[in-house]
């Protein structure tokens, strides 16, 4: 019997014949924490009596959730993280140096890796065929110290996609539709494995968006094959040597297979307060929006900002709708500046934030007021998510966000394109 991608990677990294349901101990190729989970990770590492990292060059701290820090508590946590990096020799990405998952995607993850991060959206790197998953501070602290962790090898659900996205429809619409179909716990403890001829038309940026939200269906990991598109992306990032092809075996065993035709999709939005509470954008016409937020590890890449800039070029945001844009990394920001996108966005009335996560999780830079409605390109719309339990968050694609910023109400982007 052949193996799924999850079984293949975990077999390789555990030195065993890993099959779904098995418990294995796997070496980790990369382990990281960020500024809201890192301090507890350090405390657990120290409580365990560790003094040294198993692999300092594979251990990273990212200061991205409060970047730059809005208050004394977070600033002191940043000091703690810097001190730990100095003492142990681990890598550190300081405030402004990008969202952890975007940096892992651009510069670090490679096909076949096992990656654990103290952040649930670590699954983003599954787009590069890395077994990448979020864990808590204790598990990550042990991976800091031992360079390995235990896994239950997940059963896999095969998501077969065919066709191409129609005009105005994006990867975000697909993943929201997928989560709406299987539910916010539809893949709990399981791997989602993506395949089908629709892969041939799907860019890495689109794959990152989809893998990023695998956790919103409860999945442990969202895995894509490593193919020519993966190879092209890694080469464009100057790390073509990181490429190796990775495909599931043809006779691998799946818990179930679900088919999707990309051509049949329409712009899709998740309504408050759960990600699986989906509707079509056109069904929500008339819903007034006070803030549009474009960014995050889900949709803060160059391709996302390009769509928004194209939609807003020569136009102005609705006067009652704030427009906030946060590029996910310095590379994205610099490229967007060079392409003229940032100029276009500022002229359209946008506020540009430094690369970081703050607005998405309600830490700072975009906290909503009581009774306000936001259309966000992020991955979560839970009650209280953007800093206020009395506010309402809708999730949509960058195109839907841009269209909504123009009209001041939830708008199907095909209406303004």
């Amino acid at each position: 019997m052949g193996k799924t991608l999850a079984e293949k990677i975990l077999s390789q990294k555990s030195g065993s014949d890993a099959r779904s349901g098995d418990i294995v101990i796997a070496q980790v190729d990369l382990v990281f924490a960020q500024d809201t989970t890192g301090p507890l990770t350090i405390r657990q590492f120290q409580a365990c009596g560790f003094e040294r990292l198993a692999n300092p060059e594979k251990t990273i701290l990212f200061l991205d959730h409060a970047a730059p820090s809005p208050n004394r508590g977070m600033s002191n946590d940043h000091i703690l993280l810097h001190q730990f990096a100095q003492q142990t020799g681990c890598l550190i990405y300081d405030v402004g140096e990008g969202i952890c998952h975007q940096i892992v995607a651009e510069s670090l993850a490679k096909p076949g890796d096992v990656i654990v991060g103290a952040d649930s959206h670590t699954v983003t790197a599954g787009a590069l065929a890395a077994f990448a998953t979020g864990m808590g501070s204790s598990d990550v602290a042990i991976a800091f110290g031992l360079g390995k962790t235990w896994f239950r090898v997940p059963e896999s659900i095969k998501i077969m996609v065919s066709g191409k996205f129609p005009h105005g429809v994006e990867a975000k619409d697909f993943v929201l539709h997928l989560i709406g179909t299987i539910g916010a716990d539809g893949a709990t403890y399981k791997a989602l494995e993506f395949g089908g001829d629709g892969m041939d038309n799907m860019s890495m940026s689109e794959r990152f968006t989809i893998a990023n939200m695998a956790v919103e269906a409860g999945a442990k990991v969202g895995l894509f094959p490593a193919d020519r598109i993966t190879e092209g992306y890694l080469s464009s990032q100057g790390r073509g040597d990181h490429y190796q092809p990775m495909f599931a075996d043809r006779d691998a065993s799946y818990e179930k297979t679900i088919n999707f035709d990309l051509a049949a999709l329409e712009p899709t939005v998740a309504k408050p307060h759960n990600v699986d509470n989906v509707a079509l954008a056109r069904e929500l016409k008339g819903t007034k929006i006070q803030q549009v937020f474009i960014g995050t590890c889900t949709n803060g890449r160059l391709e996302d900002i390009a769509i928004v800039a194209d939609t807003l070029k020569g136009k102005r945001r609705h006067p009652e709708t704030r427009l906030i844009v946060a590029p996910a990394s310095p590379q994205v920001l610099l490229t967007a500046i060079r392409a003229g996108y940032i100029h276009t966005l500022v002229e359209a009335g946008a506020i540009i934030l430094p690369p970081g996560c703050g607005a998405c999780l309600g830490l700072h830079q975009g906290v909503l007021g009581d009774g306000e409605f936001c259309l966000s390109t992020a991955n979560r719309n839970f009650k209280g998510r953007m800093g206020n339990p009395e506010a309402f968050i809708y999730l949509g694609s960058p195109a839907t966000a841009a269209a909504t910023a123009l009209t001041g109400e939830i708008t199907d982007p095909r209406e303004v394109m």
Partner: protein
Amino acid sequence: MLRGKAFKFGDNISTDHITPGRLAHLRSNLPELAKHVLEDADPTFASRVKAGDFIVAGNNFGLGSSREHAPLVIKMVGVNAILAKSVARIFFRNAINLGLPVLICNTDNIDDGDELEVDLARGTVNDITRANQLTFGKLPEVMLHILNEGGLIPYIKKYGDFKL
């Protein structure tokens, strides 16, 4: 044998309900953070919960973030165990890693305020108020082992490695 009162919650209680991001600056001040536990699901919970009580929830408890502070503050306010129909993956592992039992069982017939008695070894929940007995599923062996040592940190301190 654990005994305490049930605090009932619905489906999809997220880590943002338990420890919202707006309080991230309190994550290195856990006693202060614990005063806000589950604030966005029930603002009165933190002031009413007593050591030994139980959280009783529906499906997909703890979905969302990897923040271990969520089960940590639940444990700090004295919750004995979480009973739920299902639990999100990262939260589940985090709770066990902190020595906080998570028991998967059908919670439909447990009401808010019911007096419960839980026998971890036998795998039973006795709802004393309703004279109703439930059973819960066994944890995977590795998690049971970690739980029995009081959590992952004491486990690794004792064995120095994973012992599967």
